[in-house]
């Protein structure tokens, strides 16, 4: 059985990279819990002990204005779709706002003041990402539109120049579509073969099978770190060891791990790792690829255009060094700066603290949801050694997940996801067409879970009353 990885690794020393004055403009994260208006009277206040512990969820919620609203028929919003995208704290919104208000300009070649400042901030964001995942150097971080583009970059650039017919790529059936389809396209172009790892009885990817599938034919292993549907965590260190033993490279889809736990690419030993900004409190429109510098240096360009060239002649061009080689055209400057602000925000809280809180929240979610009659939760059961991510994909007997999600939204203000979560092969393997998914982040609380479960019970009762 797998255990959470990387949780005791040292925290990135990102703060050394940042302007020491940076935090002075930000609201302190400590004890910013604001009591509801109705409890502001002295009588009501007495009901809250002065020393009552304030959870991370409660203390950070004030930073997320969007969470404090009513939706649909006046229900309090309970946002549980964080695996799809996270909300953004005011610090991130302010950073993007400040960029456009104060120093919006194109980066890298402008000689003027604004361009120099924008370039500084953009490259600072790259350094923050590098420090956050403990990359050796910031040039190992390539900004992309999202994680999907980062995977495609590796597929087209590294894949096209390194794979030949009958070479093998090993993946699991639990990969997100964006970590399957690019390799299918590559397979059509190169003749490389895709090999898929299925699940164990515990509904986690079968790592023993993966180990057996890895052979000298294997050139690449593509795996998720944390499953967006099963909530399981793969032992990346071991997988990297097996792959490297046969000379294969490893690409890790870390979209569901980087936002929630300490991820150290050097400790994990991965060759490529991708993640997206919008799932970690940052803006949409930017993601990143981590690649070992020697690999990136040997890779040809992915897209052609400005930024990525060294010299352009009419009949040929020479290309810039990484990461610029892979960042053709004007990048998402404001978004990258916003991602940098998100990393500041997460790091100030501490990724270990976020992870610990979410493990507790994950167990609470799993246990609470499990009490609903007819519910089936997918993925491994939590235990002392199995830590699930703070999400549950589930179905309720006799009800379609989209009907559940619709009613929860309209009647209870609870935002969950329904569908196949971009994991159709996994759903097919589990014998289902769709599932519902509640996914939490550190600004969620046990009260959110209670609201969700209460709403779900009412939803089930409602639909069953029509049968």
């Amino acid at each position, binding site marked *: 059985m797998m255990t959470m990885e990387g949780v005791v690794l040292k925290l990135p020393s990102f703060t050394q990279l940042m302007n020491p004055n940076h935090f002075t403009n930000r609201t302190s994260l400590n004890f910013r819990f604001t009591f509801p208006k109705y409890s502001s009277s002295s009588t009501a206040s007495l009901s809250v002990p002065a020393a009552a512990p304030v959870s991370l969820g409660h203390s950070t919620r004030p930073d997320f204005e969007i969470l404090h609203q009513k939706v649909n028929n006046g229900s309090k919003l309970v946002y549980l779709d964080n695996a799809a995208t996270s909300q953004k704290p005011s610090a991130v919104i302010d950073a993007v706002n400040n960029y456009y208000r104060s120093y919006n300009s194109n980066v890298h070649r402008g000689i003027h003041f604004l361009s120099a400042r924008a370039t500084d901030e953009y490259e600072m964001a790259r350094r923050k990402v590098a420090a956050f995942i403990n990359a050796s150097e910031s040039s190992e971080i390539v900004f992309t539109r999202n994680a999907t583009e980062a995977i495609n970059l590796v597929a087209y650039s590294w894949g096209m120049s390194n794979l030949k017919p009958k070479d093998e790529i090993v993946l699991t059936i639990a990969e997100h579509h964006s970590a399957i389809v690019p390799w299918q396209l590559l397979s059509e172009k190169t003749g490389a073969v895709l090999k898929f790892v299925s699940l164990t009885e515990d509904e986690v990817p079968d790592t023993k099978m993966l180990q057996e599938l890895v052979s000298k034919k294997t050139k690449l292993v593509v795996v998720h770190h944390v499953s967006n549907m099963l909530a399981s965590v793969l032992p990346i260190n071991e997988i990297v060891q097996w792959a490297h033993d046969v000379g294969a490279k490893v690409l890790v889809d870390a979209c569901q791990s980087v936002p929630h736990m300490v991820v150290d690419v050097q400790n994990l030993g991965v060759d490529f790792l991708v993640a997206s900004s919008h799932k970690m409190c940052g803006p949409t429109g930017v993601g990143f690829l981590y690649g070992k510098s020697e690999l990136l240096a040997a890779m040809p360009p992915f897209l052609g255009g400005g930024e990525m060239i060294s010299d352009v002649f009419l009949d040929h061009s020479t290309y810039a060094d990484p990461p610029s080689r892979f960042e053709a055209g004007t990048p998402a400057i404001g978004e990258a700066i916003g991602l940098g602000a998100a990393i500041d925000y997460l790091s100030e809280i501490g990724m270990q603290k976020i992870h610990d809180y979410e493990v507790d929240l994950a167990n609470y979610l799993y246990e609470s949801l499990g009490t609903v009659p007819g519910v089936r939760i997918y993925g491994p059961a939590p235990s002392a050694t199995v830590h699930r991510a703070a999400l549950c994909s589930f179905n309720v007997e006799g009800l379609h997940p989209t009907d559940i999600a619709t009613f929860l*939204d309209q009647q209870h203000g609870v935002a969950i996801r329904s569908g196949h979560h971009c994991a159709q092969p996994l759903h097919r393997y589990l014998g289902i067409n769709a599932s519902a998914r509640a996914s939490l982040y550190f600004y969620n609380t046990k009260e959110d879970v209670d609201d969700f479960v209460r709403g779900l019970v009412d939803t089930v009762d409602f639909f069953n*009353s029509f049968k």
Partner: protein
Amino acid sequence: MNSATATIFRPPTLSILPPNSYNLTPPRIQYKPNQSNPRTISTRSLQISHRKHITPPHPPEHSTTTLTVAEKLQILDTEFKSLPEPIDRVKRLLHYASLLPEFDESGRVESDRVTGCTAQVWLEVTFDVEGSMRFRVDSDSEITKGFCYCLIWLLDGAAAGDVLEIRVDDLGEMNVGILPIRASSRVNTWHNVLISMQRRTKALIMEAYGDPSLPLLP
């Protein structure tokens, strides 16, 4: 909008309340029970008396009211506008879902599946000798079935030209939420169903006539 009529209703046969009933209740799509569909007249009819549910529709004594697609569109629009509370819309849709004849398992074939939806939908499209389009649809989601029932009521028996003229925007009110849907997404399953109805209608006409312009004319 073309004014093709839907005179050759297949089950479920639909009509609306006579106009003078509008003074008492909001316009409501009515359903004439189909004896060949036991689901609609036995257990499913029980839901009508559910305390939370809508007033049961009275089976019309004379169900031959002929409406144009444009008129039906207007009725649907009014129908949804008359339900400002999402829960009432869900109840209405669940009621309509109960009126939609289910496919046999053998009818849920992959070739008839409408892809790209969050729920599974199967759509059967035929073209009858009278020149009308015939649609049957089923889904594994009750709310989706409710929407599909509305589409069937709107377009089953219509001329191909009328089917092709309908735009998603024409049905902006047909939504569980109170905000009109103005953008197509994977969630809006009925958008995909409507587009599939139109695509397959066009394909059938092309197959039958080679030139879509002839039968599409009103």
